[in-house]
């Protein structure tokens, strides 16, 4: 971890959810380490990774929580949603079943996360276009109807991965900025100001100058 990595103004907690085997872990490793692993191990519970990107002049640190996909893990992992300001709901475009359950994942998300959370629907594995089972238009329409951002990606050939994360982080950033203007609080930033500070401070403003010391 270089010190450059440590200079950031915001930390945003983003969760990755979706059925098992859709490629959540690889999306994450592609974004944070530019790596792809054909047989990356299954995620049990939750794993994390971070990367700092620039949005305008501000350095935004994305703290991404990669969760287990198996449905029954939800019972023990629902606490992971607390304090999240963004969520990527991932499905596999070559497996319709993984798209069918997006509804359930959204419900799960809204049950446990704050209502203002920014959600993006991600259709992964576009490199396997010949085996596509979910038409892009269908997913796009679903996203529009539910007020979600939408993108199709390939963690394997890195198509749109960067864009997906950048889009959602920008969206969160602007939302935060807007809210900051509304509530003229200067030091704390929260999408849902009524929520108390949780165990894991999801987003916080940090001055680079303080970090160097």
């Amino acid at each position, binding site marked *: 971890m270089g010190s450059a990595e440590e200079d950031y103004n915001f930390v945003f907690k983003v969760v990755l959810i979706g059925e098992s085997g859709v490629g959540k872990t690889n999306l994450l490793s592609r974004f944070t380490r530019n790596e792809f692993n054909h047989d990356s191990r299954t995620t049990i*519970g939750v*794993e994390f*990774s*971070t990367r700092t990107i620039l949005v305008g002049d501000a350095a935004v640190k994305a703290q991404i929580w990669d969760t287990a996909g198996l449905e029954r893990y939800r019972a*023990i992992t629902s606490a992971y949603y607390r304090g999240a300001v963004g969520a990527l709901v991932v499905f596999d475009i070559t497996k319709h079943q993984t798209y069918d359950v997006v509804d359930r994942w959204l419900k799960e998300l809204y049950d446990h996360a704050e209502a203002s959370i920014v959600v993006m629907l991600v259709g992964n594995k576009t490199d396997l276009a010949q085996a596509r089972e979910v038409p892009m238009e269908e997913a796009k329409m679903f996203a529009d109807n539910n007020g979600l951002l939408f993108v199709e990606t390939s963690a394997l050939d890195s198509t749109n991965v960067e864009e997906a994360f950048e889009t959602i982080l920008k969206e969160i950033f602007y939302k935060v900025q807007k809210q900051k203007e509304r509530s003229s609080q200067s030091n704390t930033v929260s999408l849902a100001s009524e929520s108390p500070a949780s165990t894991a*401070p999801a987003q916080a403003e940090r001055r680079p100058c303080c970090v160097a010391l």
Partner: protein
Amino acid sequence: EELLHDSLFSEVSSLYPPFHKPPGLFSSSPRCANLTLPEDISQLCKDEDNDYLAERSVEEVYYLWCLAGGDLEKELVNKEIIRSKPPICTLPNFLLEDGESFGQGRDRSSLLDDTTVTLSLCQLRNRLKDVGGEAFYPLLEDDQPALPHSSSSNELSAAATLPLIIRERDTEYQLNRIVLFDRLLKAYPYKKNQIWKEARIDIPPLLRGMTWAALLGVEGAIEAKYDAIDKDTPIPTDRQIEVDIPRCHQYDELLSSPEGHAKFRRVLKAWVVSHPNLVYWQGLDSLCAPFLYLNFNNEALAYACMSAFIPKYLYNFFLKDNSHVIQEYLTVFSQMIAFHDPELSNHLNEIGFIPDLYAIPWFLTMFTHVFPLHKIFHLWDTLLLGNSSFPFCIGVAILQQLRDRLLANGFNECILLFSDLPEIDIERCVRESINLFRWTPKSATYRQYAQPPRQPADSSGTRSASLSCFSADYQEAPRSDLSRDSIKLDDLKAEVSPRISAEDLIDLCELTGPSHSKTPVKKTKPSKPKLLVVDIRNSEDFNRGHISGSINVPFASAFTAEGDLIQCPATATLQSFKGRVVVIVGNAVKNTAAFAAHLVKNKYPRVCILDGGINKIKPTGLLTVPSPQI
């Protein structure tokens, strides 16, 4: 075979004795029932200069041959059976868009070649030239020292003190261990106790699969049982198993092979189908991996081991709704961190880095999800000798290896550290877990959702005798009024330090009283008691009767507003005991727990509270009333 009985074949049939499948190692049928000794027994010991090595199985000899420096691939290359081509020469000359290629003949190296190559045993024999014949036939008397008295026994016992990794590469040492374990395993379950004893020293890698099975108490007709399970009918879990297998320990050649995947699938399915009250959780695949790897050609044994392992160490972890089991487990783990390393515990709690965020994959898979196979083997060699509380100590030992980095960092850095767990020194981890385990009172890791005690009827005598408290479970001990009571999960979560039972306290204090006739107590150095009992009731209550040797630090006057200990003679004693086990005893649970929490905040390790408080001790008649003080 039937044909041979026909009169037509009467002349030749005697040359082909009918084949009897030898009874499996773990079957209970007598294995020597049909053994006939020759009329003249002296014939058996006639030949003097026997080639003992030739009497060992080919697997063993090959294994030792490799240890002695044999390299099969090199031999095959020398014999030109493996011919390697530079990769550039394997590229096609011409390629069509649809993938058809031209210009390369079929690679012949992938075809079957039935040439027989004789491997020379010279090197191995040379290495073993000083090994006496006795080494091949060790006597299995119960009180025999572990290693045979051969001419080189001094060297061998020297080898026994070397690091495990070196012992595992030592040809002569391994020969001795393999021969010994082979004999013990052939006499299993009769020689179970001795297998346990030897396994505490180390387990020869060649026989690890069998030894683990013996440690897990696998017995009976395992093949028949496995064969009877329907592994073919599709079940809803199939999809998940298919998704998980290609991601499980795939760096290993065996487990990533198509054959490996097929075996994985069958064993996992067999387990799921045969345990209708439990379900497949991701992680079960990792748990299966070491057993499958070690018993790659014996699926039934892999299945039997896994089925024996899960109830012992992961009882009810695979329930459909397991949250109460996991939550209790993680809470006890938190208390273990506080007990053994208060400073680390304080830090982790401050930054909100709770076990839920990192320890679920550790415990749900008994560390098979976080370590590569070669580390799992060494970890489990010890884990299997321990009881179901031992994993807590492994968890604490892992945290302690990362201690400095955890203490120096905040939440963000800590979660990153654990998502990509740094190298853990497993031998050190094992050593430290054993040490932590020794410091942990048995009842401190009590869990109400742990496996209920087995009926005494089923422990058919062979086991209990020699097993130390290290391997026996707290839950297995008979319950009494002095045992721990179950406690609501929320209450448990609110307590930083573990509770211990009155039984444990009496044991640790080596108290003896009228109602407590124990086996002769070993007196350790009387000047250095193992623990300090801190009675936090007010001095009136204390003077009416207290545990002998306890000190009185009334809760109300113990701490400053900042939470520091107030200086007085009693707290000075407490300070001098810092590092030893401190048991807090009081009337009200709330106060005792708070007192313990304060001590943890002040970095006191090994703090625990007496479950049930002083009232538990009262009926035992162990309280003493001091003579009036001046």
